[in-house]
C-alpha cells in the first residue's frame, strides 16, 4: 500500500509551537481517507489535532492495526519530536539515565540520610546495581554497565524488620545503619510515596561507612562490625558480605 503522507496544515519537518492546529482528525481527500492518530506531543480537541510541544512535525503510517473496515482508511500517527537539546547543553547529561527508574526486585546503591530511631531509616537511592548474570545459563555477558546512576535521587525507607534475616523487634536500628552510610539494598515493595527497601540477604547491607570519631573510612571486620582504620574503634553495622564481582572475559 503505497501512499503519500497526509496533507497537513504545516509541512512535515517544520517547526511547530504548542497550540498550533495540525489538521483535522479525519481527512477526506479525493477517493481516499486518512485518519490522524495523536502521537507524542499532540492532542485532539473538537475533532482537530493540535500540538503541545515545541519541536518538529513527523508523520508515520500506522500499519500495525489492520484496517478491518471495508473502506480504506489510512492511519497516520502524527507526532512532535522535541528539538535536539543536547547540542546546546554541554553537561554530562545522558539520555538513557533519565529513563531508568528503580523497579521492585532491583538491587540499589543508596545513602542513609536519616535514622529515625525505633522504626526506620530513610535512604536516598543513588544508583541501580545490575544483577550478576547467572553463572552458567547465560554465558554471554550483557553490555549493561554494572552500576547505573540515576538521574536524580529517589527516596526509600529501610524498616527495622527488613534489616536482618531473623527479624526480631528488638533490633536497635542505630546498630545497623547510621547516616551517611552507603549501602546495598533490594527494593522490596512500593510504599505510598517511596520505595521500601530490604537488606535481609547476606550480600546486602552497609558497604561503606565513615567513623564517627575520626572521620576516616571504616573497614568491615565481621558480619556485624566495622573498624576504623586509624583509631581502631569498632562500630556496629549490618555489613554486606563482599560480592564476587566477575571481570569481563
Amino acid at each position, binding site marked *: 500500500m503505497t501512499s503519500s503522507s497526509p496533507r497537513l496544515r504545516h509541512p512535515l519537518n517544520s*517547526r511547530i*509551537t*504548542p*497550540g*498550533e*492546529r495540525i489538521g483535522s482528525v479525519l481527512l477526506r481527500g479525493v477517493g481516499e481517507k486518512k485518519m490522524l492518530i495523536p502521537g507524542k*506531543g499532540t*492532542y485532539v*480537541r473538537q475533532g482537530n489535532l*493540535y500540538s*503541545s*510541544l*515545541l519541536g*518538529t512535525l513527523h508523520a508515520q503510517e500506522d500499519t500495525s492495526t489492520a484496517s478491518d473496515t471495508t473502506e480504506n482508511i489510512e492511519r497516520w500517527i502524527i507526532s512532535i519530536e*522535541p*528539538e*535536539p*537539546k543536547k*547540542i*546546546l*547543553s*554541554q*553537561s*554530562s*547529561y545522558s539520555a538513557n539515565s533519565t529513563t531508568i527508574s528503580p523497579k521492585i526486585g532491583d538491587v540499589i546503591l543508596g545513602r542513609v540520610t536519616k535514622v529515625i530511631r525505633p522504626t526506620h531509616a530513610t535512604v536516598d537511592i543513588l544508583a541501580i546495581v545490575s544483577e550478576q548474570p547467572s553463572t552458567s545459563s547465560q554465558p554471554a555477558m550483557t553490555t549493561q554497565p554494572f552500576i547505573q546512576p540515576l*538521574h*536524580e*535521587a*529517589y*527516596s526509600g525507607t529501610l524498616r527495622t524488620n527488613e534489616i536482618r534475616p531473623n527479624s526480631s523487634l528488638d533490633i536497635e536500628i542505630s546498630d545497623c545503619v547510621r547516616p551517611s552510610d552507603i549501602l546495598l539494598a533490594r527494593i522490596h515493595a512500593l510504599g*505510598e*510515596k517511596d520505595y521500601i527497601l530490604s537488606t535481609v540477604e547476606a550480600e546486602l547491607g552497609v558497604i561503606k561507612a565513615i567513623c564517627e570519631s575520626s572521620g576516616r573510612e571504616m573497614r568491615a571486620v565481621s558480619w556485624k562490625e566495622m573498624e576504623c582504620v586509624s583509631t581502631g574503634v569498632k562500630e556496629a553495622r549490618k555489613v554486606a558480605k563482599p560480592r564476587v564481582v566477575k571481570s569481563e572475559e
Partner: protein
Amino acid sequence: MTSLRRTDILSLIHLRSDGRRPNEIRHMSCHLGALPPTTDCGSALPTSGCSGSALVSMGLTQVLCVVRGPCDVGRRSEELPDRATLEVTMRTTPFSPPGDRRVTNPSTDRRLIEQSHLLQTALSASILLHLFPKSKISVAVMVLADDGGRLEASINAATLALMDAGIPLKDMVCACSAGRWNAGGSDEIVVDLNRREIQAATGSAGGGGGAPGGGGTSDTIYLPVATMPQRGTVVLAQCESRLSGGAEAFGEVLEVAMKGCQMVMEIMAAAVRERGAGLWKAKEGKADVILVD
C-alpha cells in the same frame, strides 16, 4: 504658563511618554535556553535541576524564568494523585525595582504572593498537568529589572521556559496589558503599559476613594491580560479599578489587550522558530554552535 514638558509635547501629538503610539507594544526580545540545562538537583543554586529557561525583556522590564521538573514532590502533602503540582515562585532582585532597593521576600511580600498565584492560575490553564501525576513542575521567576508589567513578562517567560523544558502545553500563554486613562483631556486606550503609565492608571483609581488625580471623572484602568491566542481564550484578566462605564468600557480595554497578546505571541513564535532553525542547522553540521547569544 510654564514651559511645556516633554510628556506634554508627546501627548499633544498622541505619543506616549516613551514615544510609542497607543497601539504599540514595547520592544520585546525572547531568549530560550538562557541557562544551560543541568541535572544536578542537589546543589543550592537556584538553577540546579533546571530543565528549561527563558529570558524575556519587554521594554525595560526583564524577567528570567527557570523551569524544573517534572520531578519528585518534596512533601507528600503537596502531592496530587491525578495531576502534577505546579509550584510557582516569583522573586525580585535587589536591583530590580527602580524606587526602593529592598530585597523582597517572596514568601512574605504580598504583591509577589499574589502575582505568583496569578501566574500559577494562568499557567495551569495551559499545561497538560494530568500527564504527570504525583510529580511536581516548579517554575521560578526572577525579575531582573522592573519597569512595569512584570506579571505579563513573567507569564511570557514562563511559557517559553516551559516550551524549552519540553513540557506539553495546550497553547502558548501570552500576556499583555492594556489601560485607559485621561490624557490631555481625552480618554486614551493604550497597550502594554510601562511603570509610569501604570502609576497614572492606578494612582487615581487605586487611591481608595481619594480625589482623582488626573482630573475629571474618567475611568482609569490598568488591565493585565493573559490569553491563549491560537484558541482565543482569556486565562487571566485582572482589573482592580472601579468602572462607571460598565461592561462596555471593560470590553474595549480587554479587546485592546487581547490584540496586544496576539502581537506578543507572534514575537514569541518567531523567536522560537528562529532558534530552532539554528539548532537544526547545527545538528546537520551547517552552523557553529554558539552557546549564549
